[in-house]
């Protein structure tokens, strides 16, 4: 009698647990798979909460249309997605719609996530459900008129978005197809690395050829040798994504966050798959322009500034120090048509991302206070056109615009 009472009590407790439990112990593998996909999708990059560890949202994303606040995707009933079903989650991922049919903004990359099969979104859903709910109410209406009218997104979707599925290329290797799925689906690389049209949609025919964002320029990641990753070996791409550092340079800025939260935590097999896809999917991009002549006055002024302010770390011949100070010779980032990356780093400074494989995270100081717009333009022009590099000269207007865009906190932050 006593025994059966205990048994009954245990059963009752187990039932109660099952109802309250965030993760069914039986779906451990599903939750783990979801955790990995959420990592590959870098959910944390945008949805990181004020506590620095949950997905409770609250960040304001800068977009050309205004600031978009990032929602709370913890399973909190009041302020998160506690009431969402797996079907609701799938529709958000696949079609960019919230439960009830209101439209999400494509800052949430459903344009890429639409390629994810239901099984994968269900796994992420299971993972999200297994997390602690965090109460964090996020103001969802931060965009200015008219962009605050979510119904407009129906028209946007009609012009810029087709719900779809990932279709593997049977002519290609399994690694290529896995890489293609990751790059075009969960990892949504194109959100930054593809240029935007005036509506913020992908520019037709320029997929992964580099795009401007938040005062940076996400470089081309096509197989173009001058502008993209065409000259990178598979090992270099894997190293970069895993450790944030290679002999060529280091991840910083928004890509530093991607490495920290996402790629450094992915499997070597998946990173190799990404490298395979990027290296094999083809090159695109403009041919190299004629470099600015070394005798040009801007180049000569730039050379002197380089010698004074840059050469100690990046070395006179632009070769840098492997794993520490980026190599500027044959550097893709500095030769992008849009010089935002180099200007951002010179004006605001930057710090590479520390990872378990490369714990040292060297910093580039902000030179904003000691270089004029003309000097920044000249040194950038010099770097973009020396040691075999070739790219358009930088104008003082471009420097001025970047100075304004990056005004505020200089990196690294303490002096």
């Amino acid at each position, binding site marked *: 009698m006593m025994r059966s009472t205990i048994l009954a009590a245990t059963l009752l407790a187990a039932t109660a647990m099952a109802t309250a439990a965030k993760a069914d112990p039986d779906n451990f593998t599903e939750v783990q798979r979801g955790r990995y996909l959420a990592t590959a999708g870098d959910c944390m990059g945008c949805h990181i909460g004020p506590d620095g560890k949950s997905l409770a949202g609250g960040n304001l994303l800068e977009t050309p249309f205004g600031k978009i606040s990032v929602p709370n995707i913890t399973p909190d009933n009041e302020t998160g997605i506690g009431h969402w079903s797996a079907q609701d989650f799938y529709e958000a991922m696949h079609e960019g719609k919230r439960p009830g049919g209101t439209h999400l903004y494509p800052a949430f990359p459903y344009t890429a996530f639409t390629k994810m099969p239901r099984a994968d979104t269900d796994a992420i859903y299971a993972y999200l459900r297994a997390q602690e709910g965090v109460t964090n109410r996020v103001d969802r209406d931060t965009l200015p008129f008219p962009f605050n009218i979510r119904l407009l997104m129906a028209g946007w979707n009609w012009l810029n978005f087709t719900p779809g599925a990932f279709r593997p290329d049977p002519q290609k290797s399994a690694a290529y197809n896995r890489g293609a799925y990751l790059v075009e689906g969960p990892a949504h690389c194109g959100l930054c690395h593809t240029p935007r049209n005036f509506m913020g949609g992908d520019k037709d025919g320029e997929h992964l050829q580099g795009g401007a964002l938040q005062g940076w320029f996400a470089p081309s990641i096509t197989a173009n040798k001058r502008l993209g990753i065409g000259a990178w070996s598979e090992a270099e791409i894997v190293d970069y994504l895993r450790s944030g550092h290679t002999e060529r340079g280091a991840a910083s800025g928004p890509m530093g966050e991607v490495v920290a939260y996402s790629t450094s935590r992915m499997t070597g097999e998946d990173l190799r798959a990404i490298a395979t896809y990027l290296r094999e999917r083809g090159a695109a991009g403009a041919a190299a322009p004629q470099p600015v002549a070394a005798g040009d006055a801007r180049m000569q002024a730039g050379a002197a500034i380089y010698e004074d302010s840059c050469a100690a770390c990046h070395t006179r011949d632009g070769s840098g120090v492997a794993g520490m100070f980026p190599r500027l010779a044959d550097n893709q980032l500095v030769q992008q048509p849009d010089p935002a990356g180099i200007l951002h780093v010179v004006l605001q400074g930057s710090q590479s991302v520390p990872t378990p494989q490369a714990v040292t995270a060297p910093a580039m100081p902000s*030179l904003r206070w000691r270089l004029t717009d003309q000097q920044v333009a000249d040194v950038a022009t010099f770097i973009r056109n020396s040691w075999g590099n070739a790219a358009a000269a930088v104008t003082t207007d471009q420097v001025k615009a970047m100075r304004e865009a990056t005004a505020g906190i200089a990196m690294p932050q303490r002096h």
Partner: protein
Amino acid sequence: MSRLPKKDVVIVGLGWTGSIMAHELAMAGLDVVAIERGPWRDTAADYNIGTAPDELRYAVRQDIFLRPAQDTQTARNSPDQMALPIRKYGSYLPGNGVGGAGVHWNGHTWRFFPSDFRLRSHYVERYGAGIIPEDCTVQDWPVSYDELEPHYDFFEKVNGTSGKAGNLKGAIQPGGNPFEGWRSDEYPTRPLSPNLAQTMFQKAATDLGMHPFPLPSGNISEAYTNPYGVRLAPCTYCGFCEWFGCANYSKASPLTCVMPALVRQPNFEARTLCEVTRVNTTPDGKMATGVTYVDADGREWEQPADLVLLCAYALFNVRLLMVSKIGAQYDPASNTGTLGRNYAYQTNAGSVGYFSKDTNFNSFAGAGSLGMMADDYNGDNFDHTGLSFIGGANINCTTTNARPIRTHPTQPGAPKWGSAWKRSMVDTVNHYQSVGTQGSSMAYRDCYLDLDPTYTDRLGRPLMRMTFDFKENDLKMSRHVVDKTAEIVRAMGAEKVTTSYKKGPWSVVPYQTTHNTGGAVMSSTPRDGVVNRYTQHWDVPNLFVAGACLFPQNAGYNPTGTVGALTYWALEAIKNHYLKNPGEALVQA
């Protein structure tokens, strides 16, 4: 006072020894907290290349050093004097903040000679007991060079030390120091590139029969990744090294070599701007229970821990033991007690050569450890018969900097001001070079540390009192070696040479060196020191002490290499022996 949850390990001070202890013990799985009285520091944020080379801020205003208002010492030359507080640090400059003095050091990374570790026995055996001066309290170390060798080696690998081996497993190597103790391995990175002065010194010293070799340097010559996965970049010879944090990730320091790996460990925590005020013990005084500290807001906290590691600067470890009433205070009159005994320093002097105008040294391109050395008159590398002193000094030709504010050399006899002074400075600035000596400092019965009877710090604790002077033995030693520097400078082709001998009394005003040693000496019996050969306190087995306060006397070298080796030596004992029998003495008294 609030009592905090207990930790496995509490570490006082987060410099070289504290960061190494913290990293190794956290890797061993222990829950570690380090308490540091200075601020948090990080290369990227605090030693940004855009702002780091600031002579006014760092060298003149001493930005990263401890302020006397926070803690200072009283000083005197002999026990019959009244000690007065040091109100502006001068003779030595204690570090402050994460990285400690390891941030601002020059990077000279030495191993002491095998004979240094059995100093008294060595001299008595070779020259007879009469060579040891009266009241000289030098003693053998309780650990041998052979025991420390693997730990020297590992510390150098953590640092990425640049140098050239002179003795690889007993085989003398050309280009290295033939007098050094045997090394199990070559230096991790090649020596720095010598400049004109070092090349001239090398030739002159060789011509005089000496054996010059490049200074083992914590300024790294080439890109390097250390065993903790931390990366260093090549030195740029910027000349902003000693008294500065390195912005180029080129100087081995706790910030560049340990902290990037340490901060990733989830079982490590640092509390900065928190000053430990005492080590707490059980009522019978036989075990440490943790520490008490005061935070930046003046709140007092008790941090209990199973293991307490004193990793502050030498002087502050000794004082912490004194104010915590752990161990018996040394008294020179009765010659009783051990705490504060055998305080020693360093005996430095040298010569300056003035060269012709076509000899351009370009000393602005320098590095803290850019130097050529000769050890022919260091340790017992030369016959002391008839010299009536013990010890020796290294001879160094270094180029650390020619920073604009404080570099104003003039010809001997030039006026001290006015246009003639300026002209002389212009005539001299690129054409002079010094050759120095860094000499041993022996221990004496009346050179010691204790608590001052009069002066207290901001928290009401007595200041520590330093009683020290240069003694005849060390002055004679220094004079002997300084004479050699004059010969070398002449052989280098100097047109004029000035020689300055070390003179007493010791003064707290001019900068001399931050190599304060002893006071919590390691010893083979409790009679002669504060801690045993594993740096474990003789009376309190869960209390370990690190740093140069362990040295029974100081050698003719910078202390950091030996401090690092002793730290890994202690760690080996803690990890492999102590933690298996916590609370047990590793050496029976």
